[in-house]
């Protein structure tokens, strides 16, 4: 369970790639080349930490919209992401049918993301139930924002998983806001992990800007789930550095000073300097990573820009597995 040096460096690389890709999405939006973006900037550390704690390719994930870094760890490519931003043909989540960042990548066992929040928690419980019935040694990771844990569906899913000791990890990415609404208007507890207590399962809070700490906590929860000891709620604390989405102006509800303060503690900077201090990375190596990320992001944008849009007929199917046409 101990991370190797190579793994720790790879985790930083995943964070960095997701960040540069995410930043480019904002640029594309400003250029009018995409209709919408919802960002994971500031949340990469927790996502990468959690992803590395899974048996990727075997375990399942029901993610939420900020999980670009998590998806990258599951093998989602920059080209695929930019295709989805542009609603292009061949985009693997939906073929241009669903909004960007509503991941569903069957080949990576990442499924089921809707626009109404919290539905994925229930699906995770059902997936875990099936795993148990099928006697598989797998777990489900499901993520959600802290505000969305106010939904009845989240409690229902957690409660059910606890009652049946299902192999689920409920990871809450607490970025302190739900659009404009701060945490204290969503819940009376200090951490959403405290909610687990009343439902009879373990709840843990972890620094979500430290990928290695998140890894440890999630890896332990995964081992517990695999050995039949049920679900865990984990809250990873972090900060949403960007506005809620490309439709939001966050100056109306939080100060620039507050945002700046958190930018100083940006996990990308903190992890980098830590790895440098520990002698695992040199500034030259980081430069190399930056260049590689830039190259991959440029390539993705170029590739997606040239890709065709879906044909109009593609919009008419596949409504049913057993197709019924209304012509």
């Amino acid at each position: 369970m101990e991370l190797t040096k190579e793994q720790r460096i790879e985790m930083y690389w995943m964070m960095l790639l997701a960040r540069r890709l995410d930043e480019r999405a904002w640029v594309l939006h400003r250029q009018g080349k995409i209709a919408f973006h919802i960002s994971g900037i500031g949340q990469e550390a927790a996502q990468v930490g959690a992803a590395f704690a899974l048996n990727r390719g075997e375990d399942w994930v029901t993610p939420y919209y900020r999980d670009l870094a998590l998806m990258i760890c599951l093998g989602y490519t920059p080209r695929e992401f930019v295709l989805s931003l542009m609603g292009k043909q061949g985009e693997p989540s939906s073929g241009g049918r669903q909004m960007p960042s509503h991941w569903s990548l069957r080949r990576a066992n990442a499924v089921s993301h809707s626009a109404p929040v919290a539905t994925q928690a229930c699906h995770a419980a059902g997936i875990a139930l099936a795993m148990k019935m099928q006697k598989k040694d797998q777990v489900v990771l499901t993520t959600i924002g802290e505000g969305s844990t106010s939904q009845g569906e989240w409690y229902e899913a957690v409660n059910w998983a606890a009652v049946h000791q299902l192999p689920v990890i409920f990871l809450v990415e607490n970025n302190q806001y739900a659009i404009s609404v701060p945490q204290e208007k969503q819940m009376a507890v200090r951490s959403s992990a405290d909610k687990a207590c009343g439902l009879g399962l373990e709840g843990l809070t972890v620094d979500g800007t430290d990928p290695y700490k998140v890894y440890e906590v999630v890896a332990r929860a995964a081992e517990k789930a695999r050995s039949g000891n049920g679900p865990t709620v984990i809250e990873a604390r972090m900060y949403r550095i960007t506005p809620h989405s490309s439709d939001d102006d966050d100056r109306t509800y939080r100060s620039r000073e507050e945002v700046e303060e958190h930018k100083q503690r940006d996990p990308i900077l903190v992890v980098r300097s830590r790895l440098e201090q520990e002698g695992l990375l040199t500034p030259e190596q980081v430069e190399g990573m930056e260049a590689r990320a830039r190259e991959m992001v440029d390539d993705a944008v170029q590739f997606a820009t040239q890709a065709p849009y879906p044909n109009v007929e593609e919009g008419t199917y596949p409504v049913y597995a057993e197709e019924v046409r209304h012509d």
Partner: protein
Amino acid sequence: MAKITMREAISQALWEEMERDPKVFILGEEVGVWGGTYAVTKGFYDHFGPERVRDTPIAEAAIVGAAIGASMRGLRPIAELMTINFAFSAMDHIVNEAAKMHYMFNGQMTLPMVIRTVGGGGRQLGATHSQTPDAIFAHFPGLKVVAPGTPADAKGLLKSAIRSNDPIFFIEHATLYQTRGEVPEGEHLVPIGKSTVQRTGRDVTVVTYSKGLEISLKAAEQLAKDGIEIEVVDLRTLRPLDMEPVLESFKKTNRAVIVEEGWLSFGVGAEISARIYEDAFDYVDAPIRRVAQKEVPLPYNRTLEQMALPQVEDVIKAVKEVI
């Protein structure tokens, strides 16, 4: 008369009613500090305070359920559901509770509440963010379902809704907020449950509401160039449904097209055409046509989305088919 946007009209209605009656208050996600997802309640929080403009947790069932509870105590809550797609998370409270309580308990408690929500597609928000399921809500006796198509009607109907002693499901269309129109100054009320003629014509009766009104009026302009005059009847309220202006117009034109943004099957068009056949069969000169959304979840990509949504050309084609 002042020309204002639909957004301003709705905002004015809320503001005036809150000024008039201290029992009126707003609850919903992002309605306070942020001023509402569509900026309808901008400035309300500062003026009316956090007691009467309440930011709630993300919990639609509790928002509607709490509005039911508060209205039983005589307050007049306006529960805002950020979009109609999230109303499904509160469906039990809307259709099993709000719609039935007055009847089930023999009138012991009234529910003077409004559920304000935003429906409609056309903004590239994907299948679970862009629905027009208005007809579903109109299916339930006990709810009144209002969906205005002009700023004047939006203001007048919303004010009536807030004063009504029944639960009102008030649907605004996401792409109509910038629509401008004349709104009478001063006290302006429009009765719930009254359809109206928005454009007169002799050749074909076009029955529609909400976004469909905009599409139909555009079609009317183009058809007029070909010498075809359509009469556009705006339902404004889906339940209770006022068929009188529809039937009156139909008896004159003997032809009808129904235009709605929701899906075709089991939609508003099905209801209206059935009623015309039932109540004006002797006047029918051509099969009634329906224009509606294609039977797919609304796709994200712009071209696909526009393919699925009813267009002005679809209305023109349908009108020409019935002539």
